[in-house]
């Protein structure tokens, strides 16, 4: 995460803080890859003879066998959960980097405020000496807010998780960490700033004071999906209800593949729709690689009641029939969720043709 550090607010800005704040974006953990190979031996069996050598344990992503095996693994102990020689293994890594943030995703981030006694030491010193003054850290509080790119840079106060967090501050012994998690639904493209404020009470034997600092983490949110829509009239249905066809092209403009999970319409009163896509066809959910597009289609029509009459006429605004919004849900790598809905879609009202 590109971040800028701003000077802390209190007067003693120059003095280092005994609490440090670190953040990690919690995208989904990723499956670790492995490239299993046969144990290198100085005298290999020739191509035709000899039993199959076990896979070299060092080439696997993790060691399943109890460690007191002296490295001489029979093949059986390597099996179990590891699908070697397959390239993916079930062990997971924490997110290695911030990655890219996309509209439609939920931005999760963990905030860690730690009592970091080493912070007060000169850079070349790694150990606390007994002469260093003992400070106790009390009443540590974290606040977080998100600045979004809209007009006037609106600021959203973020709720701290996990679960319901009490307002009370937390006391931290040296080395202890106060960990909180924030979630934020990304809805806009552009510059976002996560602002985190940490306050705490620092007490020595003789005195005490409240200190506060603030860190800003800036990141860019990019578009993930381009949605192009086109609506056109269909012939009037059997009961005289008006019908339209709504087509949409969904283009993956991100950098990662996404698997479309569902496309649904949230329609205005009095309208219903028929899905003509993969669910109707009973095919697999489409996988969109970066730059690829999927075309989806719906038939929208006025609802017909039990008495065979059109219940309600569709809402019209300025000569336009308004359908409603299109919602698209997808899953990224390791199931990372995304959901996007369009603006209100509709079409110009054309006088319905009479059904034959």
């Amino acid at each position, binding site marked *: 995460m590109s971040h800028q550090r701003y000077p802390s607010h209190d007067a003693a800005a120059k003095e280092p803080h005994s609490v440090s704040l670190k953040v990690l974006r919690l995208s989904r953990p990723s499956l670790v890859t492995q490239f299993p190979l046969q144990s290198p031996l100085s005298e290999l069996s020739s191509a035709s003879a000899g039993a199959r050598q076990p896979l070299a344990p060092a080439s696997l992503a*993790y060691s399943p066998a109890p460690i007191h095996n002296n*490295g001489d693994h029979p093949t059986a102990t390597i099996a179990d959960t590891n699908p070697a020689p397959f390239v993916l293994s079930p062990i997971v890594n924490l997110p290695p980097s911030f990655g890219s943030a996309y509209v439609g995703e939920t931005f999760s981030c963990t905030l860690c405020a730690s009592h970091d006694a080493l912070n007060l030491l000169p850079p070349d010193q790694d150990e606390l000496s007994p002469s260093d003054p003992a400070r106790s850290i009390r009443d540590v509080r974290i606040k977080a807010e998100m600045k979004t790119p809209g007009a006037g840079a609106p600021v959203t106060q973020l709720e701290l998780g996990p679960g319901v967090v009490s307002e009370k501050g937390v006391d931290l012994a040296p080395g202890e960490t106060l960990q909180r998690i924030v979630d934020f639904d990304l809805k806009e493209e552009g510059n976002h700033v996560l602002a985190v404020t940490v306050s705490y009470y620092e007490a020595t034997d003789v005195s005490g004071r409240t200190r506060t600092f603030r860190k800003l983490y800036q990141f860019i949110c990019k578009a993930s999906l381009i949605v192009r829509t086109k609506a056109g009239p269909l012939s009037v249905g059997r009961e005289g209800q008006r019908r339209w066809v709504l087509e949409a092209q969904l283009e993956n403009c991100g950098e990662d593949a996404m698997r479309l999970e569902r496309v649904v319409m949230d329609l205005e009163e009095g309208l219903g729709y028929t899905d003509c896509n993969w669910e109707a066809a009973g095919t697999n959910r489409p996988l969109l690689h970066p730059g690829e597009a999927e075309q989806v289609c719906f038939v929208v029509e006025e609802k017909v009641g039990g008495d065979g009459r059109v219940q309600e006429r569709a809402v019209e605004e300025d000569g336009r029939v308004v359908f409603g919004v299109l919602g698209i849900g997808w899953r990224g790598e390791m199931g990372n969720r995304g959901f996007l809905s369009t603006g209100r879609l509709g079409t110009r009202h054309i006088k319905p043709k009479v059904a034959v």
Partner: protein
Amino acid sequence: MDQPKEQTSKGHTRTRSAVKVNPNGGAPLASTNLTLSPQLQPPCLYGRIIHALTLSAATRPRSSTKGPLDVDDVPLTSPGPLSPQQAQRMALPTQPRSPGPTSPLPRSAAQSPVPRRPAPRPKDFSFLLRPENYHPLTPLNVPAAFRSDPSKQPTPETPIPDLLARGQFRAAAIAATNALTGPDAPAPSDHARIFSLLYTRLACLTLIDGTSIAAQEVKALEDLNSVVYVDEATGEHLVPWELRVLNVRLQALGFGDPRRAVMSYYDLAREARARLAAATAKHDNSARELWKDRLADVGVRVAGALVEMDDLTGAAHHLGSLPAREGGKLAMAKALLWLHLGDVGAARRCVKVEEAGETAGKVVDALCDMADGEYEAALARWGELKDESEDEMIGVNMAVCLLYVGRMQEGKALLEELVTAGRSSHTLLFNLTTMYELCTERARSLKVKLSERVAAMDESANGWEKSNADFKL
């Protein structure tokens, strides 16, 4: 795996100069955008590969192959085997050009390939004994802790098997090179020893994060399908199977042509199938099992190659076509691939439908919960699994889950426990150092201490020496 069609494998020569250059950088032909026209998508993977090959064959006529490996390329005036200088000179024109923006012009399309008539003379593999094939390895990316204990420092006299058993892979890679290029180098005709040392060298490089170096060094082998590597008397391939398998991935990386790996694995699969048939005919059961294993192994590696070239749908399709064996490993592989693709439902179905084994099913369930963002539920599952098994993966995944539910302190303690128990996988160290970084501005001292703890562990074939990258140093 079905037998691929004959013509698919022959386009695999060592003239990489004309490899397909994809302007989009990476997206292979086999996975080009077919989304809008599903009717173009062939029904099975083989169809897809063959389709891709036909395409590339259309743009790349077979060029004649010249190089030190073609025995008949030796001028008739040259009576003896190739001298290293000759070999080097002849190797030059076949050095691959990096796939640049220039269009792959069909080279020497007019020339007809030189007819091959293998001459019965002793094999000369001196081109693999040239010191310039091998890169020096620096100890600079090894943390100081691994270089300080004199009792664990290998000497130049330490035999390679000892180094391997002690997990000293960097030292083993260096020792293999020294053995190949030093004063006691094997005779140019001693193929068994040369290939054994070469395999040790390349395998060890991949184990010490030196895959890119290995991918360069493997180029010296050139085309393993060449007649030079075949024993004329018996018709058997002289290169050990293990090296041929490793060669596939490394050459694909080295020449920047990932689809080549798929083709080459199919070559190996065809041979394995033929050998399997021969062994069955001779009622040679041990050979039959061996070739069956190898065939299955190559089949799974094709899926891996497809994953590496980001053709995840192709990989899923391919895995689906493989027969299940080996106690549910395949079901686990499929489930992981679906998870990687983001299809949690399909992942769950894989372990339900097939006999994946109880533990594997629970592992996939827990991973699926994580993919759904249900970290509390996943944590409970990992906790149950941890009571049953000492598997390192379960501990690490549980610790990761703890961080996602806001209990990093416990996660960190759990990872520390695993280190204390003697585990030291790259993933464990990576996750633990990431947690260190979250706890303090001054994580470096914690990382150095961790490297000292790992260096103090007993040496084992699991790998002892680690790199700076493992500790994010």
